[in-house]
């Protein structure tokens, strides 16, 4: 232990995508930089594109061995896909603390003692995205560009829908059946030619079919890119990207805003805890700082207003955020039904974290598949 203190504290970051993907992975990478900035002397070693498609032949435990040999004391892995690998590696390296982002091993009790989970409550961000979309749309048709189907993606799509239906009914005072909300899953977090549906084509299909706002649930920016092209061809359309604060860049005409993750505060806390030796295993689901959802030092989730958002909508959004903050507004309030008509929340019931986390279907009123075929 003494020896370790002499060396600078290093932590490892395993990113599923490229560190500069302007999406999920870059948000994590930036958080790593944030920690380095806040804690001088702490060093990050990151390894990006940690997925079998990009790193053929290499398994996660092998990469962890590699990081271990460089003396890291904490490893943060940022993908759902790494669940088994992280667990296996954690068992092999009890001397290292592991944080698996988006995982649930701690809840399910499968996690060894040196493995914790964190996640951000993106549900709020998605609600805001849906809210803005519903207030902006002129055709009443909102498209949701979904990645693959799992609990996380279902609950995020559902949150967007609930935000949209709130805006539609409460602000625009229109009947819910006039709002069309359709989810198209491409099959993965980003396009893999010949394997996933091409997100460019899916976005095109939305816009050509009269959907004028597309909310992106995938890691890449096809939705804003296609929207910009449609704008240039004289069409009035918008898009809402995902994950990363800077995702609106270059899409001034169409970007309504972006719900994003801000991992910095959580990372900082974990690094400090491990460094000081007082880390405790836990499953954390961090929400926004309701005082200022865009506060870099405190808020885990934010919504950045895009250049294309109108002032009225921005104002309404501010009100919505306040409502969420005070608890006046809770869109997860019954009665809410699953797509097949079975109840998700009974009348008057509010959802528990666990109920939201393990959402098993899309909601009634949303179009699109609830489970993969």
């Amino acid at each position, binding site marked *: 232990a003494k020896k370790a203190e002499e060396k600078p504290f290093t932590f490892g970051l395993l990113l599923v995508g490229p560190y500069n993907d302007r999406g999920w992975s870059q948000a994590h990478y930036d958080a790593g930089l944030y920690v380095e900035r806040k804690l001088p002397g702490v060093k990050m*070693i990151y390894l990006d594109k940690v997925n*079998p498609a990009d790193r*053929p032949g290499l*398994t996660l*435990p092998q990469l962890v061995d590699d990081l271990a040999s460089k003396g890291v004391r904490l490893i943060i892995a940022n993908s759902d896909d790494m669940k088994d690998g992280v667990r296996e590696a954690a068992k092999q390296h009890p001397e290292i603390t592991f944080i698996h982002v988006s995982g649930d091993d701690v809840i399910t009790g499968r996690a060894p003692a040196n493995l914790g989970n964190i996640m951000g409550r993106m549900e709020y961000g998605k609600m805001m995205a849906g809210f803005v979309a519903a207030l902006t749309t002129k055709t009443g048709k909102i498209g949701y560009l979904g990645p*693959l189907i799992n*609990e996380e993606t279902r609950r995020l799509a559902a949150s967007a829908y609930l935000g949209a239906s709130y805006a539609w009914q409460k602000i625009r005072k229109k009947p819910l059946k006039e709002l069309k909300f359709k989810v198209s899953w491409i099959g993965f977090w980003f396009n893999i030619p010949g394997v996933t549906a091409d997100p460019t084509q899916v976005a095109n299909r939305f816009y050509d079919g009269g959907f004028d706002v597309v909310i992106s649930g995938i890691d890449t920016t096809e939705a804003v890119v296609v929207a910009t092209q449609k704008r240039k061809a004289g069409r009035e359309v918008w898009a809402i990207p995902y994950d990363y604060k800077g995702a609106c860049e270059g899409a001034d005409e169409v970007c309504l805003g972006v719900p994003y993750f801000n991992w910095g505060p959580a990372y900082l806390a974990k690094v400090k805890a491990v460094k000081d030796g007082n880390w405790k295993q836990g499953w954390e689901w961090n929400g926004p700082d309701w005082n200022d959802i865009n506060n870099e030092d405190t808020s885990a989730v934010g919504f950045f207003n895009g250049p294309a958002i109108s002032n009225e909508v921005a104002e309404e959004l501010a009100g919505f955020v306040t409502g969420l903050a005070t608890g006046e507004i809770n869109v997860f309030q019954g009665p809410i039904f699953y797509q097949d008509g079975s109840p998700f929340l009974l009348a008057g019931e509010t959802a528990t974290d666990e109920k939201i986390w393990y959402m098993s279907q899309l909601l009634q009123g949303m179009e699109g598949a609830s489970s993969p075929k």
Partner: protein
Amino acid sequence: MLPAARLGLSLGRLAASLFLSLVFTTLILLIAGAPPIDTFIILFAGGLGSVAKLAQTMSVWIPLVLCSSALLLAFAPGLWNIGIEGQIILGAIFATGFLRPFAEGGSPLILVGALLAGMIGGSLWAYIAGVLKTWGRVHEIFGGLGLNFVALGLTLWLIFGPWRRPGVASMSGTEPLHPSLWLQEFKGLSLNPVSLALALVAIGLVIYLLRSTRWGLSLKAVGQNPDAALLFGLKPNKRILESMLACGALAGLAGALQVVGVYHRLLPAISSNYGYTALLVTMLASFRPQLIPPICFFFALLNVGSIQLPLQLKLDSSLSGVIQGVLVLSVFLVHGLEGRFRLGRKKE
């Protein structure tokens, strides 16, 4: 030509090719703004630096050798079996399918069945490409390539559909196999002796088949001249199908070993592009079996070493593929220039 002179010539060729590829690679590195010498050091240390890394390199060497041996069989009758990727995948699918009923584990003997199932899967896929070629005149490049995508689609459908893990469905693949169905590794190393032995047997077997059996000879004859082979009664179509079956079986074995020996589950990227890399290997070896093991080792080294590039230099690890490509291109260039030079000299 005297053996010594011939050896000298091939060494000269090798040196020229290596030099050329070094120049090209350095150029590319400079374009990318990377320090060439450090890059090379990191690349090699990354694959050789320690026993663990060497073991990792060997674990990549195994599927490469299997696939390259497989390709030697396909190249003998002149087949461009690009479909080998799909054949690896089918091997993995069949092996996984075979092991699914044993979720609670079982005796290691079951693994024999899984490996055989993998070989059958690979053969099946190769056979389809072969039939398309012999009975439909669809060139094996296109037949094979199309089947590669279909195989990948099949894997994804299985992973996200019927074989999905309870709760999650993701690129991380199917539920891991029961640990009793994992091939035992050398202690503390990611390398297992069974796979290693099988790879050695495979290359040995292929050398024997091609050098010493009439079957191997007739494959070569079909490749040299299908018309004459027909006249000789060698049944070219049947030979083509046989060679595809054999090639597919070895590729399928490689796929099955990836499942039971490396990943312990079915993944979308289970083939790791080893099939394509093996195509480069065989071309670099000019289809000479004895060169396969060393070239595979070098390529595996690059693959494993390149993992260090993003870690230490923020470079993309596709550099390994770039170097492999440059190397093969250089060899072709040197051979071509040499041929040209000789022709020119003859004319004088």
